């Protein structure tokens, strides 16, 4: 029983928090940052140059904006994302993301009626 509780407490240390870029700056560990894609800023992915380099800008919940480099291919439907959870570290002024999760509202095209014959 004691062992069990001990293990649970140690397991709870793995829990992450949703951070802001400001938090990420303080931390040298990997963090999760929640934010939104800055749609007015440039997105850059050129597989000819580097298939594992996708850069874009994200504004976190506190309004701070940073360039993000995702070390992966550009995810499908990235432009449509409503919210992005970045996983990685802030290095200098760039957030290096190993992975990200995005929330896409249009995945099921809920409130959109497509008309017959329309392209």
């Amino acid at each position, binding site marked *: 029983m004691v062992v069990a509780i001990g293990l*649970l407490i140690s397991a709870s240390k793995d829990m992450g*928090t949703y951070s802001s870029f400001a938090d990420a700056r303080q931390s040298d560990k990997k963090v999760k940052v929640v934010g939104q894609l800055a749609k007015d800023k440039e997105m850059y992915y050129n597989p000819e140059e580097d298939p594992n380099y996708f850069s874009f800008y994200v504004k976190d919940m506190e309004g701070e904006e940073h360039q993000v480099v995702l*070390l992966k291919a550009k995810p499908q439907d990235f432009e449509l994302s409503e919210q992005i*959870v970045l996983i990685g570290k802030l290095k200098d002024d760039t957030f290096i993301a190993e992975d990200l999760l995005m929330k896409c509202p249009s995945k099921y095209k809920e409130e959109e009626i497509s008309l017959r014959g329309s392209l």
Partner: protein
Amino acid sequence: MEELRYIGEQLLPGKLGHFLVILGFVSALLSAIGYLKTTNLRTDAGYDKGWLAFSRTNFLIHTISVLAIIGLIFFIMINQMYEYRYAWEHVSEDLPMRYIFSAFWEGQEGSFLLWMFWHVVLGGIILLNKGKWEPPVMATIAFVEVIINSMIIGVYFTDAFKLGSSPFLLLRDTMDAPIFNNPDYLSMIQGNGLNPLLQNYWMTIHPPTLFLGFASVTIPFSFALAGLWMKEYKSWLKPVLPWALFSAGILGTGIVMGGAWAYEALNFGGYWAWDPVENMSLVPWLILLAGIHGNLIARSTGYSIKATLFFYLLSFVLIIYSTFLTRSGVLGDESVHAFTEMGLEWQLVLFILIFSALSTWMLARRWKQIPAPEKEEKLQTREFWMFIGTLILLFSAILITFTTSIPVYNKIFDGIGFLVGKDMSHLHRSMPVDPEPHFNRYQLWIAVFVAFLSSIAQVLRYGGRSWETYQRRLAGHLLISTIGGIALFILIRLWIDTFTWQNAVLLGAATFAVVSNVDYIVRFLRANWKSIGSPMAHLGFALMLIGVLASGTNKRTISRNEFAQASLLDDVDARNNIVLIQGKPMFMEGYWVTYRKDTIIGQTRKFLVDYKRVDPDGDTVEAFTLLPNVMYDKQFTKVSASNPDTKHYLGRDIFSYIHALPAAQMDAEEGRKQEENLDFHDYLIRPGDTLTLQTAAVVIDDLVMQVRDPEYDRRPGDLAFSVSVKARKPGQQEWHHAAPGLVARQALLYRFPAQVNDLNLRLELPDDGLNRVYTPEDSLAYQAFTLQQGETKEIDGIVYQLIQLDRIARHPDYIAEEEDVALNAIITVQNRNLPGIDTLRPLFFIRGNIPYHLKAYSPSRGIHLRFTNIDPVSETFYFEAAVDPDMNKPVTLRIAERVPRDDLIVMEVIEFPGINLFWLGTVMMMAGLFLSMYTRARKPIP
């Protein structure tokens, strides 16, 4: 306002559907009450016949309602009746019929119905067996059906509070769109269809299996409640066992299928990612296994009845909890495959509360009555170690649930915050940043324990029977297992790496378990092969562990090469994608990989990628082709899903997945934007010109009256024109050829741009290009002359020579007919002021006694040549030639530089060694469970 009369709507199925949903609800409720009464009114003589008949009839009515509802939904979907939201949401005109089942259970309502369907089937089996346990067990099943049925009942109390969501809602009632002001809206809308990611056979087989698993967990739960209810704490232990084994087998199969789906058809790059949805299907299964082991102990020794009850009750509550997590939207930020929200959160919470309260209450009420032997348990008994095993399974489940429930804690904090009026969001936590190491770290030790326990407990006996004589045999078995385990461990270490000492311990435990279970099968079961289920399942578990170690820790990304840039983060090596250019072999991790070509079949675009491994002598030791593919949406404008392809060997798999295509091919909208951004410049060119661009030199070779483009299919009457050019990078030797073209077909112009990917060039001819090559006949001044075979003549500085005549008539505008007499003249022409010679093939033919001719034209030389007549007697041939007045005019060539390549794919390739051991192990586990079920159901074990 007058109500609109809509055209073409069929409202009857919906009305019938609503009625059936309510009928199903009411009949389930009546059946539950009936069975409750039947159980409570039982006497020594048995059950009250009247109540029993009442309950059965109502369950039958419920069964018919469920089947009819399902039938109606299929009817609505198959006929694409988009007036119903469920049909509109899940089917479309182009959805192949074979996906109709997938479309049915894609939605929450459909999956609830699938769940109900299996309850009805399982309940039906219990009902038809008419055993002593029918009334109390059926009471619970019917009650569960009441609750699930309420999820699809769709009754609104206020606008904000509804009970369930009906699958028979009308589309126009569920959304507010201007199109519904049109009475004929139905003829104008099309269905959404099935999410392309779900259009595969896994979606057809996985949900029914998993939901059968879910539904089957209800049976041990009902039996446990029944045992408590009837105060018969022992007699239920026997009939429940086959059901629990079946449930564990089928639920396990469903979970493994989910893993296989993720591995075969999705981009997880593995079969298990510790995703919350996966976790929450695993947890009830673990608890069910704990229950089965408790049940076995209880059957043989009378110990652990309480634990068995607790586990069976808990496994069902966890099934509902899992349902809540996946369906309430609570996992939104954390899972890739939760359902979309449906507004049933509170109903699902209530569902959990009702059944956990019921279970707790029943258990607490009877706790003191449940028999538990007072005797001290001895270390040398099987039941002691089995019981430890159940506790470890429970602990595993607690650990997984603890982490997976993080989003729930956040919601609870929000709830408390709402009540006390404070913002509690600072207490929010997220799932571990790296879920896999987190879960693996803890579950590894659980697996080690389970592997050892499954070996030790197998060779021990219940009650430690005849321990004195048995002791020595046990020592013998342990010795064999240890020596054999070590030998196997060494052998496996030759094949795979364990990397950490923890993994080495796990491998040690697994090899020990493999040998001891094989030993057990060989030594103990020769006489009694029917008990093979248990060692088989445990052997399967041990093999699965080896498979996990092999494929998980030894998986290797092949899609890398040493030229990749240094990693931006020192401790991260996430760069797993590689770019393949069509036709250019790329060397990676021992393989030469070539993206050969792509083919389009329906909505799917397959990429043929060749793999070749060569030994130092240059001999090919391995060669295969993989076909990873992408699926486009129905308008072919956007990639909607990417599907991996995997080469399966006995010892390893090679998995490949396309992560990206050129932007324009991923999304037509992107392509349009990219086109707009291309920096085109116009150049006026003549044959022989050289253009010096910023990134390349372009030489104009010739103007040609044809277009060679795979997309172009020449038809008579077409005016086809292209400029053939060669280009190279400054300072390089290799020329790249291209020929942008232009075609006029009747009144339409078609452009055929050319791309030189190696130079990032795009070339095209603007529409005015045709002005240069199209000259009206009446503006040409033809001069007649004759030639004989081999003869040469010079007219206006142009030398004509008739080389030969060809009876095989060829001309782009000529379609041969029977009885035609046709002849091609092959004539070389040479301009005095231009280098080189050109060959022209004018055609002469006679059709129905009338002579016709079709001219040949060399745009670069400006020569129009007609073959007008033949004098067969003197073998003289008549020609007319004209010089084009525009021949010295330049042509506009439009060129853009720095154009993105359109012939590449971005791919990830991973090698999974020993993954078949994982599948073999899981299959053996499930087969072992089913075999045990069969044995337990058939022959009572004394």
